[in-house]
């Protein structure tokens, strides 16, 4: 009962702040909303008995990625950025497309195996780090390595693009 | 040219790795932490007695027999660049002065005085001296008008005292202003 109540609090806050991210005019306010959204997601992860994922969510996304976002956005000319409309009046088809996407996602989720609600393994708040680590480095070693390679390539690409003189 | 920069600076590297310079710095400040402080606990516990050359609040002197040295010649009033001294002379045969002429009024407006000491130089009888009281803050303008009676009472620091020391003191506040009462018995120098 209490858990359900907390779930609704976090879920409503998460969706509300996510809407705020795209609807607020001021980019800095958007980043703050995104931070709130991420924190709510971390709370939801805790409720799914995945504290490790929750902490990593806070650590990586809130603690590092969003700080970088802020670092860049703070240098923007906010008054100019605030003047631009996100969806200009003539482009109402964008909203229609959005509606189609929402319907599609609802369909996919409701038809897939994910829709089957499994009761969370209660009291399993310990030992998750070890399990995650073992799964990552045995069962999912190939995707893990591929992802790290992709990230490395992206990193190198950024360095090459960022260099001033290209020979 | 000499190829010296190829040499491996082992000593410098070790210094960097073990933060030797930083630790040395830390020990210097650590020693200072427990060394004697130089702060004077003014005004609650200590105060500074200036040298005799100091130019503070004016004092009107008496001679050894206790007679007023001031003869009301008004030279101080004339020499004062800010015109803050008012002298009104009068004839007096009772013998409270050294001559038959004394000051009826001798007033100084401390709000205007800049403590230049010209009045002191002008005084022919050495009646006027700039003393060593400098805590002159008060709560009223009236307080800054010092009259003859006040200036005739000897200051806490005797004129012949050498000065240049820290003495024990006590802070006294009343409705007219502040007063620091020095206790000349305990003297020290901070260096």
């Amino acid at each position, binding site marked *: 009962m209490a858990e359900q109540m907390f779930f609704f609090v976090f879920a409503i806050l998460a969706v509300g702040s996510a809407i705020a991210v795209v609807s607020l005019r001021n980019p800095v306010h958007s980043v703050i909303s995104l931070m709130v959204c991420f924190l709510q997601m971390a709370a939801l992860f805790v409720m799914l008995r995945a504290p490790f994922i929750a902490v*990593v969510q*806070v*650590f990586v996304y809130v603690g590092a990625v969003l*700080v970088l976002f802020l670092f860049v956005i*703070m240098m923007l000319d906010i008054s100019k950025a605030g003047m631009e409309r996100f969806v200009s009046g003539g482009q109402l088809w964008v909203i229609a497309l959005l509606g189609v996407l929402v319907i599609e996602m609802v369909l996919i989720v409701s038809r897939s195996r994910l829709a089957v609600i499994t009761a969370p393994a209660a009291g399993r708040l310990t030992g998750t780090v070890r399990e995650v680590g073992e799964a990552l480095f045995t069962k999912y070693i190939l995707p893990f390595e591929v992802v790290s390679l992709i990230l490395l390539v992206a990193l190198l690409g950024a360095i090459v693009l960022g260099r001033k003189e290209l020979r | 040219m000499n190829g010296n920069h190829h040499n491996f600076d082992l000593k410098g590297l070790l210094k960097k790795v073990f933060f030797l310079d930083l630790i040395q710095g*830390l020990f210097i400040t650590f020693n*200072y932490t*427990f060394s004697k*402080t130089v702060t004077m606990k003014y005004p609650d516990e200590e105060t500074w007695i200036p040298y005799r050359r100091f130019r503070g609040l004016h004092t009107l002197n008496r001679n050894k027999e206790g007679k007023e040295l001031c003869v009301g010649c008004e030279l101080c009033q004339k020499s004062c660049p800010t015109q803050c001294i008012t002298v009104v002379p009068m004839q007096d045969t009772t013998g409270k002065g050294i001559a038959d002429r004394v000051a009826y009024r001798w007033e100084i407006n401390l709000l205007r005085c800049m403590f230049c000491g010209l009045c002191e130089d002008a005084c022919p009888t050495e009646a006027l001296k700039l003393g060593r009281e400098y805590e002159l803050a008060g709560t009223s303008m009236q307080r800054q008008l010092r009259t003859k009676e006040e200036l005739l009472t000897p200051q806490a620091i005797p004129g012949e005292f050498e000065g240049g020391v820290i003495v024990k003191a006590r802070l006294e506040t009343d409705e007219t202003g502040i007063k620091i009462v020095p206790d000349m018995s305990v003297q020290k120098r901070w260096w």
Partner: protein
Amino acid sequence: MIELLLIGIKVVVVTLIVFALPLPLTYIERKVAGHIQVRLGPYRVGPHGILQPFADMIKLMFKEDIVPAKADPWLFRIAPVIAMVPAFAVFATIPFGEKVTLPIVNYEVNLYISNMDTGILYVLAIAGLSVYGIILGGWASNSKYPLLGGLRSSAQMISYELALSFACIGVVMIVNSLSLLDIVRAQSGWHWNILYQPVGFVIFFIAGLAEINRIPFDLPEDEGTLGAGYHAEYSSMRFAFFMLTEYVAMVSMSILIVLLFLGGWDGPVFLPGILWFLLKVAMLIYIIIWTRFTFPRYRYDQLMSIGWKILLPLSLANILITGLIII
């Protein structure tokens, strides 16, 4: 039921203690600063100035709370709170000692609010959130120097949090657990991690100084060039919140160093564990204050090159060597 009540009591007690800590800490800092500079420090309010922090507190409470006309009013008001909340939230998972038995009711009490499986990650993640208050306070002030302070803070935080967490990894590898309680228990009997991870300790200490904005890394509030930096526009209690955050962060960083590297409450038996713990924390706080009044501030580019070119490769090498030794 009694468990929940106990947790509630513990939360209240820890919060109150942490709230009150900056009062003695400001006094100690000013006294140490004074004596290092051959001065006396605060002396007039109460015997040896002991009541000075209370005078300061009263002064800050009754000052006018100014919001600049062109500031972002909402963010400007909330930024000090954003800075302060994570600093307090860190204490949720910090253990202060082994179980103790309450003398009268004979009930065993754990000296922590919660022993998380991912304790150390939680502490590092939450402690990192404090920087939002600084960045947003700097940005929302809509003024040159606070903005520069906020920018510096965000860049500094990203650069040093990497080294900070990498320095922890060596400890985690040795102990084989992320729980702070396990980490401390593994060090009992003089097996302190500082003996096995000296490089990690040094990296953690330096990166920790940068993380809590202390000299020589206090660039976000650089008085010399930025004129108080991110809190230049703040006054009254909002300024006090920033100060509070800084001191609480100093305490939590000292506690973290003690837990990770200095054996927590481990020590000779003639003193109870909690006293050893407090003694070590107090010593570290003194060292942090001592460094503040010994060293000058690093330049901004020096700060960046220390973070990225020295501390980060060093911490990676430390992880590699630790791994090789364990295998």
